[in-house]
């Protein structure tokens, strides 16, 4: 029986790579997002390349009222009933801009955290009822500790990480697995111009997708991609606060 994976935020850099990675393994795919034209192009590519079934559903993170309808549609596409859901979208604006423009700050929190809670509670309820399924949430290393250069984005991801961990705790006894993914730097449109893609610290979306797919199969709880970010973050988290607050970081 083939699995069906819903990808929320299907046109993000990581999502595109993950859709291919999972379809290559035979998963049918439901693409959920805002850009119908891009998702149609992706869907055609996935069916031609991997000969799997693909469904497309409009999904707007900030359209909270329509989340129940969206989720219902995701359950009724040609790709079949979802057995896995991956939340793969995020919003990262310039930190300085978020400090002076409350709208941007609010948008960051609404997209990265509030919308995630809204849609995933719906997913959690259904999967719990079925007593099976896997939920994967792409958070970020930025959520491990707030730092001056990125704390509004970091706060939203810190919230998301705590939410996902609580969800994992709740759903364990229902037979539903929850995976938290914490990427460091990945070469996508979110980080274009901010990081040097040739740096060994920067993962390609394909590498991140492979890490995520393997972790989903192995039923890991939390992973960093790439793996060495757990060392970097452990060091960062160990720095005592009286020292950390003085750093330009």
């Amino acid at each position, binding site marked *: 029986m083939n699995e069906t994976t819903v990808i929320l935020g299907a046109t993000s850099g990581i999502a595109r790579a993950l859709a291919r990675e999972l379809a290559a393994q035979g998963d049918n795919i439901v693409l959920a997002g805002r850009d119908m*034209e*891009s998702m149609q*192009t992706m869907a*055609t590519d996935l069916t*031609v*390349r991997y000969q799997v079934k693909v469904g497309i559903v409009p999904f707007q993170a900030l359209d909270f009222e329509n989340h129940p309808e969206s989720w219902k549609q995701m359950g009724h596409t040609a790709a079949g009933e979802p057995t896995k859901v991956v939340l793969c979208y995020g919003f990262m604006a310039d930190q300085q801009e978020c400090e002076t423009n409350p709208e941007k700050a609010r948008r960051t929190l609404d997209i990265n955290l509030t919308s995630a809670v809204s849609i995933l509670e719906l997913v959690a309820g259904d999967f719990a009822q079925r007593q099976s399924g896997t939920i994967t949430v792409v958070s970020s290393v930025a959520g491990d500790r707030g730092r001056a250069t990125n704390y509004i984005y970091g706060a939203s991801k810190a919230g998301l990480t705590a939410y996902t961990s609580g969800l994992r705790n709740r759903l364990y006894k229902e037979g539903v697995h929850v995976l938290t993914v914490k990427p460091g730097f990945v070469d996508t*449109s979110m980080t*274009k*111009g901010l990081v040097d893609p040739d740096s060994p610290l920067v993962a390609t979306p394909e590498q991140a997708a492979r890490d995520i797919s393997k972790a989903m199969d192995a039923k890991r709880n939390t992973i960093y991609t790439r793996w060495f970010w757990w060392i970097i973050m452990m060091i960062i988290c160990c720095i005592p606060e009286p020292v950390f607050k003085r750093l330009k970081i």
Partner: protein
Amino acid sequence: MTVKETLSGWGNFEPRQCCAHYLSSPTALQDWIGRSQDTYIARGFGRSYGDPSLNSGSNVLHQSPRNHFMAFDESTGLLTCEAGVSLGEIIAAFLPRGWFLPTTPGTKFVSVGGAIAADVHGKNHHVDGSWGAFVHLLDLLLSTNEVLTCSRTQNESLFRATLGGMGLTGIILQATIQLKKVQSAWVKVDYKRTRDLNDTFAAFAQHAHNYRHTVAWMDCVSKGAGMGRCVCMFGNDADIAEIPSAFRSAPLALPSKLEKMVPLDFPSWILNPLSVKAFNRLYYGVHGDSTKIVDYNSFFYPLDSVHHWNRIYGKRGFIQYQAFLPPETAEKGYEKILERITQAGCASFLAVFKSCGPGREGILSFLDEGYTLALDLPNIGHPLHRLTRELDAILIDNGGRLYLAKDALTTRENFAAMYPRKAEFMAVKNAFDPNGKLVSDQARRLGLVEGA
């Protein structure tokens, strides 16, 4: 999004700063073109060696985000895909289903758009022709923001200008190409060693017509008696019965190969006449006459498994000099070229020599019936420029030309002499790009655009 990038071709020769853009759909491209007054050129995976995909101080539009398959017909083998799809992706998706590329250059890290723009060729050119022969149609986004479908029956002059047109007619959005049905992922190869250039020509004359794939690794360091000696590789697609028994139950699968990587630029003294001579002697010595069954990856893409092999040439980079000569003058012309190169002591290891078949699909297509020789020349500054001028002169005297996908140094005058159909190409280009927005550093250098 826009990023300033320092770009070069595969030869790492004279990198230039360009404004790089990653626009991932035709709509995004049209939006950008509509708003922009500046020049631009498309870039695939940057596997051309010189400057065809550079545009110093101006725009380079990366096509790699546009890498979607659009349709595949199992009964005909016709594949329609975006121009940013790589040949490697096509193989990965379709070889397991029994389909291979109809012809392939020496690396699979080339985009479909790049393959069309350079009208690439492979080891089967003498039988099947170039990449252009297998392109049924393409959609071209002009600088006027119009999209035209081009084929042998529709907008034909634009089709013929785009094949081998180095991206100067417009941005290729998608293309329909003909894949080839294959039984296995293996090639049966006969290795033959030749003593010198004369012997090499004789070997091709005698044997090439019996094989679908022919190529020779030529020793470009030995002077005198052994000059132009080769290890010839003549191959045919292997039937299932011919492949190693361990792989017979899965004839389209491959042995996994350990990928290596050159992690940093080597110091420039590593490749010198002595080390190259030693390597050539070893390579020539190791390969006697024999027959082997070789997997497609090792036969068609020997260098792809060493990622960043171009770093072996160090920070100063290198150029690749790839020449074509017609049958009447090839032997005498290549003899002069080899004499000049071996005399200059320019270390070029493992040059590639091949016989070619008739027919040029595009106005500026490189090959025709005759012979091609490709060799690497390290960037040693002015002596290199002098050497290539002299080699160009030999080519022009003998009715030959250079491959634009490899060229980094030739002059406007030499190019005009090598490509007498230049005016015909420019007439088409100027008709469809009246404001001259499609510009590359190579186009400026060769006088293919005004105001260079």
